[in-house]
């Protein structure tokens, strides 16, 4: 025992000392995110809101995203039922993912970095570190659970019962622990930290998809899914403790498994051998374009997925949008454009949100070129016959291409889902959505151009382009509520193009904004081709 766990308490103490800031942010941020939306939901539930929401969430597409509810009739769909139904699965997922990253960061990652080697050279047990990390995560998740429960109770809202609040909090805490133990097991099995993280997140994703299937087809099967043990507690309605018990047993078994696996392996080794890569490069990699595609590939794919999912999420609301919007004063005010169909009005706003999201990706790609430059990745490439114009325009080209595809995916995802759930009542066709999306393409090009300009002249300020995007988005989003002077709201680029499909297409603005964006890119190039490369900054 001593050989295995000696001085784990010392390591735990060290971790708490090292991580206390992170712990506070973790608990407070996730706590607020999990429990803080009660007032917003009270607002939504007003009038016919809860009933509208109930109808909306009966849609299989929605069930596959947020999970089922035990409530059988709309009248029983109380505030608590609605809150648990819509929030619990996602909050649980967040808790899980953060715990996963934390556990692997303190176990396998430290092993890869060589920190473990140093620690092990002292009188520290072979598995003391794992024990210390698990204790830390347990501590954090218990506090998180209590924090959430107390916060929920403190709102003193109807149907948010004390029992329900504690079950809600405990479900999120246990979700964190499930993530932590899966991560600990895979940290032993995989050959390094990044594949441990990747496979753990992959398994969680798989569990999520499996539960989407079982929830829609036969939700009795979801109880066999570790992810099911979080939201199937049904806080505020059934208040079922049993899934939490399953989860606890699961966690204990997994920890034992992890310790056995860890005890039997060498430090730095895993059970799955390191996968061998390619000894030679594929032809597709052997160019600046190929290289940039390769290094941005992961980012691009994950953002593309996010666009489709976000589009589908918003699109699924269309089914019962009318009911939902009419029962909500705040929403009503935002969409109160007289004489225009609610769908068209809603679409123009949601499209703005979607396309603002799309605009993040090209900024990421353009800023990436500077990251590569300053972190010395390109040193050896600068010394070849690859010109700066090649580096710059390949990046800009990639950014523009991803903008175009991104708009298609976002608008297509939104429109496709919306039309599916609206069925024959749809007043809009898929092409209306796609056109409305591309109507906003110049706004994406504009921020891309802005990022290019910054890259050429003040590359260290790349992050400010995101700030502009956020500013612009916020201004636009709240424009309807706050009565702002026109010139002020025009500082947001999204306020320039026509609000399609509500308004007619404005070709002049479309072309002007596009031209300005292109000019930005060209001016950016003049800077980029002339300035010193900033290495190691």
């Amino acid at each position: 025992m001593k050989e295995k766990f000696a001085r784990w308490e010392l390591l735990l103490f060290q971790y708490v000392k090292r991580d206390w800031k992170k712990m506070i942010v973790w608990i407070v941020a996730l706590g607020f995110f999990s429990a803080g939306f009660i007032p917003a939901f009270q607002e939504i539930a007003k009038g016919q809101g809860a009933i509208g929401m109930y109808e909306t969430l009966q849609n299989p597409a929605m069930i596959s995203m947020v999970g089922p509810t035990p409530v059988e009739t709309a009248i029983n769909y109380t505030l608590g039922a609605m809150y648990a139904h819509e929030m619990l699965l996602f909050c649980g997922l967040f808790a899980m993912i953060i715990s996963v990253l934390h556990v692997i960061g303190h176990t396998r990652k430290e092993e890869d970095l060589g920190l473990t080697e140093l620690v092990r050279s002292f009188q520290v047990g072979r598995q003391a570190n794992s024990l210390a990390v698990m204790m830390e995560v347990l501590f954090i998740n218990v506090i998180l659970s209590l924090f959430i429960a107390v916060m929920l109770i403190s709102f003193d809202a109807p149907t948010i019962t004390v029992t329900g609040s504690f079950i809600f909090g405990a479900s999120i805490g246990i979700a964190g622990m499930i993530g932590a133990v899966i991560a600990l097991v895979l940290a032993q099995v995989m050959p390094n930290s990044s594949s441990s993280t990747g496979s753990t997140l992959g398994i969680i994703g798989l569990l999520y998809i499996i539960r989407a299937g079982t929830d829609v087809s036969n939700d009795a099967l979801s109880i066999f899914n570790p992810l099911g043990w979080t939201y199937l507690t049904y806080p505020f309605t059934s208040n079922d403790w049993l899934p939490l018990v399953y989860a606890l047993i699961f966690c204990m078994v997994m920890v034992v498994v992890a310790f056995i696996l860890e005890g039997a392996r060498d430090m730095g080794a895993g059970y799955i051998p390191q996968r061998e890569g390619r000894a030679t490069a594929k032809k597709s990699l052997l160019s600046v374009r190929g290289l940039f595609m390769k290094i941005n590939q992961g980012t691009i794919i994950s953002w593309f997925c996010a666009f489709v999912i976000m589009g589908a999420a918003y699109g699924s609301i269309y089914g019962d949008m009318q009911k939902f919007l009419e029962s909500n004063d705040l929403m009503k005010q935002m969409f109160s454009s007289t004489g225009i169909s609610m769908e068209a009005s809603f679409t123009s706003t949601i499209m703005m949100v979607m396309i603002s999201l799309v605009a993040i990706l090209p900024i990421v790609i353009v800023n990436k070129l500077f990251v590569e430059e300053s972190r010395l990745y390109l040193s050896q490439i600068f010394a070849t016959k690859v010109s700066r114009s090649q580096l710059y325009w390949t990046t800009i080209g990639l950014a523009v291409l991803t903008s175009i595809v991104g708009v298609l995916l976002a608008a297509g995802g939104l429109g496709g889902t919306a039309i599916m759930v609206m069925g024959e009542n749809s007043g809009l066709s898929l092409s209306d959505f796609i056109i409305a999306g591309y109507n906003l393409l110049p706004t994406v090009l504009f921020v891309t151009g802005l990022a290019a300009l910054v890259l050429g002249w003040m590359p260290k300020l790349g992050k400010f382009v995101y700030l502009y995007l956020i500013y612009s988005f916020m201004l636009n989003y709240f424009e309807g509520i706050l009565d702002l002077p026109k010139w002020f709201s025009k500082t947001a680029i999204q306020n320039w193009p026509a609000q399609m499909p509500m308004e007619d297409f404005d070709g002049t603005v479309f072309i002007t904004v596009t031209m300005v964006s292109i000019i930005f890119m060209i001016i950016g190039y003049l800077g980029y081709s002339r300035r010193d490369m900033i290495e190691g900054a």
Partner: protein
Amino acid sequence: MSEVVNVQGVQKKFGKFQALHDVTFTVEKGEVVGFIGPNGSGKSTTIRVLLGIIKRDAGIAEIFGKDVWKESLDIHNRISYVPGDVVLWGNLTGGEIIDLFIKLHGSGDKEKRDYLIKRFELDPKKKAKSYSKGNRQKVGLIAALSVDSDLYIFDEPTSGLDPLMEQVFQEEVEKIKAAGKSILLSSHILSEVERLADKIVIIRQGEIVEAGNLNELRHLTRSTITLVTEGDVAELATITGVHDLVEKDNQATFSADNEHLNDILLKATQLGVKKFEAVPPTLADLFMRHYES
């Protein structure tokens, strides 16, 4: 036109910081030039100017007679470069990165590549994120040595390599030197330059303080001599050209000016020499002398 690299009075400022005051040196065709200076003295900055990564504020900087800023792409066709800190994309394998660099350079040799991978004992199938510093350095070196260039620029090339691999590197550099290529070898590790370089350029705080062939530079300094005599060695202290004399029994260790060597030896023979050792100045001595002042 035998000058491959021609740098005259180059200056560079970063904001208020004057990184290069006055850098002047040349690399002739077929010459190996050791570019020596401590960290932060301006070695890498000079190299970045030569590569057209940053723009000089004043002075002339040419490679193959072409301006390094305006005609950088023409120049890059015929040079190979290994940075001091080789940073690689973690999700690509060493083999993939080598292939990429060779392709981007233009004229690669597949056989040479495979030969060098074997020589440097690199596992090309591993993802770069699992490479140690030494292995990343190998990737850079293999890519640079696999292509055919006229000028090779190495910035602290052996940092992170173990002594065996350092030996391999030295041998490979000797081969390209024998093939008549020019090499600019920047380093603060003196021994690696001492063995290969025909000429030494010493930089200090952005200024070239000494340049010349190694033997010439050695004339400027003193040899270290150790003598054991039958008579009293203390008598040596009076001779001009003897410095820093340390006596221990009948053994004396001192540094001697080369032009007074004859007088010193004449005196020593009168005392009856039992043991004599002379060590030529190492670069370390050269170096120290420049940094003492």
